[in-house]
């Protein structure tokens, strides 16, 4: 399974070890870990005390699998893994892991960034923050949309 949605935390070292275990073709592993901060860009609030991640069970897993499949079609990579947490999370906690294995760094870096950019705009997760002013749903950022779109432009070029 290339994609997992879970409440529990994950161990990056253990996940990377499992992903590359016994595969001597692998020369590069690129990974990204997203973490909960206590501030949010583009807003006057700071001091986020907790966050709740909601998702669309069923569609989320399908969307993540589709993004991984697309990354494998676009770049010469061997494997990719996405773990995304849901439920209640506190600042400094890990939210998401994307890891990609390949022969060389160029393809693995690019594929890892692509998976993350597409996840941000296509996987059905929603963040709700608790701040000193109360709870609020996080607004989508246009910079996330443009980050995803540049891969489309690159693909079509």
């Amino acid at each position: 399974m290339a994609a997992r949605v879970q409440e529990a935390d994950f161990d990056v070292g253990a996940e990377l070890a499992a992903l590359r275990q016994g595969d001597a073709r692998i020369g590069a592993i690129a990974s990204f870990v997203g973490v909960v901060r206590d501030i949010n860009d583009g807003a006057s609030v700071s001091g986020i005390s907790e966050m709740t991640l909601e998702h669309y069970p069923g569609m989320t897993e399908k969307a993540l699998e589709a993004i991984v499949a697309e990354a494998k079609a676009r770049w010469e990579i061997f494997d990719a893994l996405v773990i995304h947490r849901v439920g209640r999370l506190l600042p400094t906690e890990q939210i998401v892991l994307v890891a990609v294995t390949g022969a060389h760094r160029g393809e693995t870096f690019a594929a890892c960034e692509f998976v993350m950019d597409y996840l941000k705009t296509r996987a059905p997760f929603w963040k709700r923050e608790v701040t000193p002013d109360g709870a609020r749903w996080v607004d989508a950022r246009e910079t996330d949309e443009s980050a995803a779109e540049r891969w489309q432009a690159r693909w079509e070029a």
Partner: protein
Amino acid sequence: MLKILYFASLRETLGLGAESLDLPPGVADVGGLLNLLIARGGGWAKLGAVKNLRYAVNQEMARPESPLKAGDEVAFFPPVTGG
């Protein structure tokens, strides 16, 4: 019968996470269903004002012109904010 799901801020605004609805006569696509829901009035009218409302049919991203048939699972939600 359609299964309709609402997520995140939309679920809170409507006070409803899921409902079942017989596919109404004359409703052929997602946009048609949306118009029917908005026409319920009250809080439902807010569906028409949600910025960048997203849709999914059978757990795939969809568009207003995406066709609907009995048995489909339709979801309405705000732009996603994971990662």
